[in-house]
């Protein structure tokens, strides 16, 4: 059994492995980063550290997150802090990670970020790999 954070992104429930989560916060003002990849919403300060804010909707290839969204999951990838925007947070609970069902076709960003499934009372939730949402320098250049 592993510990997962259950969140909602673009109306869908996802399970985020808690070892990827540093904290859960409500962000303050976000400063835009012109010319950066569309999934980089900007920079925000949190306890005197600068977070790069990820527009999760855009990163997953769905619609952008609403401008008002402030709730975010803080994760650390390669020494940098990222704030991954979420619609809402629900719960932290233990689940048994399951492999993705065969034949399940994830499209767009989901395919790269989906790492498996958990079953919450018969409700399948995708396990989301936060680091897959962070645009790397190479991906950003290609964009």
């Amino acid at each position, binding site marked *: 059994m592993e510990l997962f954070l259950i969140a909602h992104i673009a109306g869908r429930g996802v399970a985020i492995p808690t070892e990827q989560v540093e904290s859960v916060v409500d962000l303050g003002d976000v400063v835009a980063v012109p010319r950066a990849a569309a999934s980089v919403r900007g*920079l925000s*300060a949190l306890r005197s550290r600068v977070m790069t804010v990820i527009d999760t909707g855009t990163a997953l290839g769905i619609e952008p997150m609403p401008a008002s969204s402030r709730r975010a999951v803080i994760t650390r990838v390669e020494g940098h802090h990222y704030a991954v925007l979420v619609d809402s947070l629900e719960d932290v609970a233990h689940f048994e990670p399951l492999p993705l069902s065969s034949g399940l076709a994830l499209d767009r960003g989901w395919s790269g970020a989906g790492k498996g499934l958990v079953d919450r009372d018969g409700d399948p939730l995708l396990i989301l790999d936060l680091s897959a949402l*962070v645009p790397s320098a190479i991906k950003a250049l290609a964009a």
Partner: protein
Amino acid sequence: MDDLLQEFVAETRETLEALAGEIVAWEAQPTDGARLDAIFRFVHTVKGSCGFLDLPRLSRLSHAAEDVLAAVREGTRAPDTALVNAVLAIVDRIGEIVEAIDAGVPLDDSSEDLLVAALAEDARPVSHNLTNTGHRAPARSVRLSVDLLDRMMSGMSDMVLARNELARRLRDEGSDPRVEAALERLSVTVAEMRDAVTRTRMQKIEALFSALPRMVRDTAAELGKTVALTLEGSDVELDREMIEMMRDPLVHIIRNAIDHGIEMPAARGRAGKREMGRLTVSARQSGNQILVEIADDGQGVDVPRLVAKAVERGVCTSADAERMNDAARLALIFTPGLSSRDSVTSVSGRGVGMDVVRANVEQIGGRIALSNRAGQGLAITIQVPLTLSIMPTIVIGCGDQRFALPRASIDEIVTLRGETVRIDTVGDAAVATVRGTRLPLVTLAPLLGLTGGAARTLAIVGTRDGSYALAIDTVLDTEELVIKPAAPAVMATGVYAGQSLPDSGLPMLLLDGAGIAAVAGLHFDRGIMADEVQPEALADQQVPALLFDDLDGQRRAMALAAIDRVETVPVGAIRRAGGCLRLTVDGAVLPIRLVGDLAGRDELPVLRLTDGSSEIAYGIAEPLDIVALPTEIAPARGDGLVAGVVLIEGEQVELLDPLALFADAESVSAEPALCLLRDDDAGWMNVFLRPVLEMAGYRCVSRIEDGCRPAVTLTMAAGDAGAPADDAVPVVRLRRERTAPLGTDPSIYRYDKDALLSALAHAVAARRAG
């Protein structure tokens, strides 16, 4: 000396740790040039350091390894497994010896001959036993890692932010004077702490300079030279890390200067120099940059030899070398493995050094500049920022966002309202002219995709390759910022150098001046690189020109570069005066060229042309458009003002030749020089000389009328009668004899027409120039 040894041990240990990865990588892939270079630099640095610390064993090992690695770099030896193993054994051994030095325990040197022998081409592999160096002596001083200082610094920033937050809250909630007093005390303490923490990173450059006199003396003695060292500016302070990073480059440069630059005493004597060479190392602060200059009075860099070597080594072709300018040729000295010297000494001279030096300097955000005077010496200037982590910046507003620009990268800030600035559009590129200097213009807001706000200010941004003008909305503030690297996705945009969290609590991005230039597509001349791409670039590059209707109804064009500006002047400002048409504008009188009449016009657009020193005007009927000139120009016949005919939008257009316009204006403005013939010889001059002189463009008179001053006077050498000569008027004397009398007689035989005309022309020119 103890301190130096400690430094050496600590540095070598640190480099070895850093090198561990490189060694493994090189072992896996011996042909990897970058790894090879890294290991080469390491052994070279060790060799350099232990040369002056008197560590013969290390010197021998590193020299042997360097020889082999140099051979690999030059391609004369293949990096096979045996060689890699032998080099790695030596690197390990260097590490052991260094540990032994630090621990103060003796280390058996019996196996070192074997290690050196193993480097030979036909050597058998030797088994290498790691020697346990035993205990380490307790450290005598605390070496603080810069990381720790960085953390202190960022902790300070946090403290300032927390204090600001606290102050804000207290203000909002109404204040108790006692709390306010406590907060005030906290503020003062925090400010003091911040200052102190900043200072912990600062060190006098003396720490770097103090080792130099001994090093210079020893190096010079080793080479049989005498060198007087002058140190200036020892009390300049800079970041501790900078000092550490400057050490190697400085040592390399000084050793090179003594070995390569300063000649042997005998040779110096022959060259008329004092036998004792002079070396000056000076440091000074300029803004937030530290300039360290190492100047010697030696022979300088033999540039032709350097170029020849570069061609020989295949660094560039001789055609490339032809195209390079002097600076680019001199910059070849930074090519890895290239030296202008043939011989190899134990001090330097394998061409290593300058590439290492530049790599080290650039790694800390510095620049290096050479000033070479062949035969007279070389001055190398290293320019480094004061500190890495705290950067003085200028905060600018663009759209509704704020950005920081490193103050060091900004040469100047000018407002667009000022008289000194003009913005023009050349083709589809914008050009700013600031006090006569044309700079490419980049407007920040559209580049960043921001809207709102008008560009009202120009920041002149200097990059390594050239300067450009950056149009921004406003300059808000100057601020010292703690700069951190931003996330890869942010850095990938290429326009940011980092991010910062200023006291406002809102993150701010630091713009990268060079990056912006690259993203905006500005191209500066970049030495060899630029020369190599030039042929294609030239083909694409189109010369912009102004298309206009001329006064005679012809459609003509002129290269935009020649046109300073186009303005409309009243026709009344054009007068015929002093033999040519002149235009009065801005309180100056310019020659103006018109090819048609002005009937029925009150005003006239004129092109004001400048060649840098003089200015002329050209009247036109109407300016039409700025076009790119096609590369094919049909050469013109006849009228000297037309350089050729080009096809623009299917129409024949005459292309004016600004050169001819200037040449024309010069000759028009030059009135015929008045030549006074002081004839005492029954009219010989009037009859014989006058036609010749008038043909050559002089106006001849026999008598001076009132208010008229001759440009030159012709007289016969013998009979110098008549009015006393006017001192201001040059005199050319003629003589009747074919041969000149003895002595320094400047007179000219009267039938020597060529000599006479040339003497007259000289006299007139000299008077005009005077």
